[in-house]
């Protein structure tokens, strides 16, 4: 019974983490879909949002969940500025090494992480929230339950908000004119241009949007995690793994990829050991590369065909 309880608890934890991962992964995926580049400063942008939320909390006691409303727009404009003034000019530069823009985003990430270290020192910081340890137990509500499962308030709220934002994004991409233009640009930028879509503008907006999404994710992480300046690199890698897992550029794939990764990491942490969770992350990544080159998106497609 204990074994089952641990297993179920691990699944719940993995699902909650996966919801958040989905949000992080989706941000990178839409940038990749539209720009055809990988933004290796993705995690560092998230880190910037985390420090914004942290400062808002310590200075004005603003709840991290509310600071999404501030941090996400700030990140939106930061993303736009990066795209317009750094990345876009480089797209036109000719060089021997083809991965110029990717290396450029590495440079941006290095600067952001290092500046954070200078401003905030490399200490681990946490925001003490009143509800941080509020926990609900299953047996409090269902006395005769054979297993006792628990869920903490910040994890649940974070998960729900992440799902809400992801659904909002999906609605935006599927239903609004601008969302459709973005999707058209991602599919075939030349065709989109002929159809009258302002492709350059869509690229800039998409970069802003992707940054805003990961910014929101950063705020959602504050109540459940601690922050330190180098935290970004790890999330850049996570979002890349999700992007590969999901199938390059596929939004639905990224959402599934995030969930799968969350579950898998949680399982590795429980059954192999905490320190190995990141290895589990990469093991599944390697497995996806070798056995499922098109990612989750290819599975979805082949199902639809039947």
């Amino acid at each position, binding site marked *: 019974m204990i074994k089952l309880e641990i297993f179920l608890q691990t699944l719940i934890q993995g699902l909650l983490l996966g919801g958040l991962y989905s949000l992080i992964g989706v941000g990178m995926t839409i940038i990749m879909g539209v720009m055809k*580049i*990988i933004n*290796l400063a993705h995690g560092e942008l998230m880190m910037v949002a985390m420090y914004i939320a942290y400062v808002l909390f310590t200075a004005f006691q603003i709840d991290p969940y509310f600071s999404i409303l501030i941090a996400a727009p700030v990140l939106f404009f930061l993303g736009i500025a990066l795209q317009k003034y*750094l990345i876009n*000019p*480089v797209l036109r*530069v*000719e*060089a*021997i*090494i*083809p*991965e*110029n823009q*990717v*290396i*450029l985003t*590495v*440079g*941006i*990430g*290095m*600067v952001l*992480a*290092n*500046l954070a*270290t*200078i401003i905030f020192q490399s200490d681990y910081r946490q925001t003490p929230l009143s509800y941080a340890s509020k926990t609900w137990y299953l047996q409090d509500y269902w006395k005769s339950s054979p297993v006792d499962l628990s869920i903490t308030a910040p994890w649940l709220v974070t998960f729900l908000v992440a799902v809400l934002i992801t659904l909002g994004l999906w609605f935006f991409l599927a239903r609004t004119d601008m969302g459709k233009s973005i999707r058209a640009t991602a599919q075939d930028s030349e065709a989109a241009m002929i159809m009258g879509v302002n492709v350059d503008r869509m690229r800039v907006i998409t970069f802003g949007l992707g940054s805003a999404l990961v910014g929101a994710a950063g705020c959602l992480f504050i109540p459940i995690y601690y922050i330190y300046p180098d935290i970004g*690199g790890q999330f850049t*890698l996570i979002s*890349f*793994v999700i992007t*590969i897992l999901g199938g*390059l550029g596929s939004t639905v794939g990224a959402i599934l990829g995030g969930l799968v990764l969350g579950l898998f990491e949680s399982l590795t942490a429980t059954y192999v*050991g905490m*320190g*190995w969770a*990141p*290895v589990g992350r*990469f093991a599944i*990544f*390697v497995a996806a*590369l*070798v056995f499922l*080159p098109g990612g989750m998106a290819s599975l979805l497609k082949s199902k639809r065909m039947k």
Partner: protein
Amino acid sequence: MMKNAFPYIGLGALLLFPLLGFSSYLMHIAILVIMWSVIGMAWNLLGGYCGQVSFGHAAFFGVGAYTAGMLYSKLGLSAWWGIPASIVVVTLVALVIGYICLRLRGPFFALATLSMGVILRITAENLVKITGGDIGIMIRERTWVEKIWYYYIILALAVMTFLVVKQVVGSKLGYYFVAIREDQDAAESLGIDTTYYKTVALCLSGVITGLAGAFYTNYMGYIDPKVVFALHDISIITIMVVMVGGAATFSGPVVGAVIMVLLAEMIRSIPKLGAAHHTFFGLLLIVIIIFLPNGIVGDFEKIRKLFRTRQEQP
């Protein structure tokens, strides 16, 4: 005439350099510059000529370093055995990494290699019984106290690497590498087994980098996973060495190594700025990519023109 003699004069100067009685600190800097030249030349073979940009060369450097370290800590052998041993070990690792990553193209290859570096770091951190984990490996008996012998060993490695690169680039292999860089589909349809040749480039580049890693263990006498598998301080600096100097040029990696090592030392020596060295490197990277995308050697004409027009307009 002068052009033919230049490499020999350069080599002579490098051979005589340690005899001039520089301080141990300057010798240390010289050794670092040569070591980074080796790594840069190795990366250039894969990234500059073959067009496969690796973000994970720390994987090879670290495996080389740990091969040397573990021969010492586990088998009680001299860590110098790591140099021949790392050729075998790194080749195997490169084959595995190649099998996984080379099916991806462009930026996805880059990121996949980056992940490989991280995987190896985490593995080294967690396999405490084998690698010593975070504590790392300390080589207690140093072979020499004076730096001069280390200098000559790494110089020999650098000369060897330079000759290998020169030989490869002028041969069928070099033509095939560049053909793959310029257009993989065209190369494939011209009868070039792109997967095979990319694997060759990866192995060559990895082994040379691994040799530098094995040297590093012997020279520094201490390694730990965070240092030898470092993403920024090894993998990214490797790319910067080549990008600053000039990709797909013979002298680019050497020029890049000189600049990067000196810059790093300068920044570190100024106490207030030391903490910001990644900011400087990041900014340098951004500036280079925007203004000198082919590096100092590759865009030398651009630099010369810039100075000429300045002189003409007083």
